[in-house]
């Protein structure tokens, strides 16, 4: 129930961001600092989420099959594969490495 509350609040805030864009004066758009922070934060958050999902396990850092998934995804992206293929490459690499005994 607690998770539901944060989830619905997230939905509300996401819509608030979107709607804010339609309600604030367009002059804010030309404030380079606003859009620059939106941009650097997008890069920073996605980089952080990638790393957390690759090497974090609770409060410790572990090197396991997920690292293979990261490498496989990077190769797929390098080869300009579509998003879904990248995701599947990550899953196959992690599952394959576990099958080979590297957890």
């Amino acid at each position, binding site marked *: 129930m*607690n*998770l*539901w*509350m944060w*989830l*619905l609040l*997230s*939905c509300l*805030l*996401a*819509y608030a*961001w*979107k*709607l*804010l*864009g339609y309600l604030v004066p*367009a002059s804010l*758009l*030309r404030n380079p600092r606003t*859009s*620059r*922070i*939106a*941009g*650097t*934060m*997008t*890069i*920073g*958050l*996605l*980089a952080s*989420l*990638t*790393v*957390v*999902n690759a*090497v974090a396990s*609770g*409060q*410790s*850092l572990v090197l396991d099959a*997920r690292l293979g*998934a*990261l490498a*496989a*995804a*990077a190769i797929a*992206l390098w080869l300009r594969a579509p*998003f*879904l293929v*990248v*995701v599947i490459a*990550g*899953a*196959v*690499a*992690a*599952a394959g490495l*576990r099958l080979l005994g590297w957890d």
Partner: protein
Amino acid sequence: MGLDFDTAEPALVKILQSPAVRIGLSISIATGLYGVSFGALSVTSGLDFWQTMALSLLLFSGGSQFAFIGVVAGGGSGVAAMGAATLLGMRNGIYGMQINALLQPRGWRKFAAAQLTIDESTATSTGQTDPDEQKRGFWTAGIGVFVLWNLFTALGALAGGALGDPKQWGLDGAAVAAFLGLLWPRLKGREPVAIAVVCALATVLAVPFVPPGVPILVAAVVAAGIGWFSHGRSDEGLEPDVDPYAEDHVHHHHHDPARDSRGERTGDDA
């Protein structure tokens, strides 16, 4: 298009001949399909079917949705998940300003357009120069992605729930790949790469010292600090997840048409 249609359904043919509508439809299919991976990952990270659907229907922004379930999967609290999802949604506000300036929706359309303001619809619209095409591109991609994304989220959630042990299927690896896939198109040039590396390092350093989920927020603060104090391009990192016009520009793919048109437009408005 067959010749017969020209006389039978001129309006329909005209719509389907619109480049923005075609781009919008193809981006809808490509993006909608990967709703499967969101649905599957969401239920395996501990959300139930309806929580998963609520995210796709109500939050409706791929990056933020993946962020929410990514934090939950890592053992983070609901409030940390909300923080990551909300900070990642900030760029949609910037997109909203751009679309508002281009389409100037009135009444209820403004509120509908807001919900459909995401990477894909913004990129499809801003890639066009004709105002009518910008409008068609936005609504086609926005509605198309919304319908297919939700359909495939449901499919993925049902399939993911039936899989059993998610690790055996490498679904934790799929999540890693998904985040890298969302980050990748934004790493054009040395500066965004440097920002990504610094934030990745900040995350790794923070993991042992703070509760799960919080390292992501630490990285967000670092990234915001870089944005505040440095003086790079003002639209860095605002490249959409997808480049719907990539195929038109195969001859010079280092060139980002979405950004160029956005730049022009800001100039026009001034």
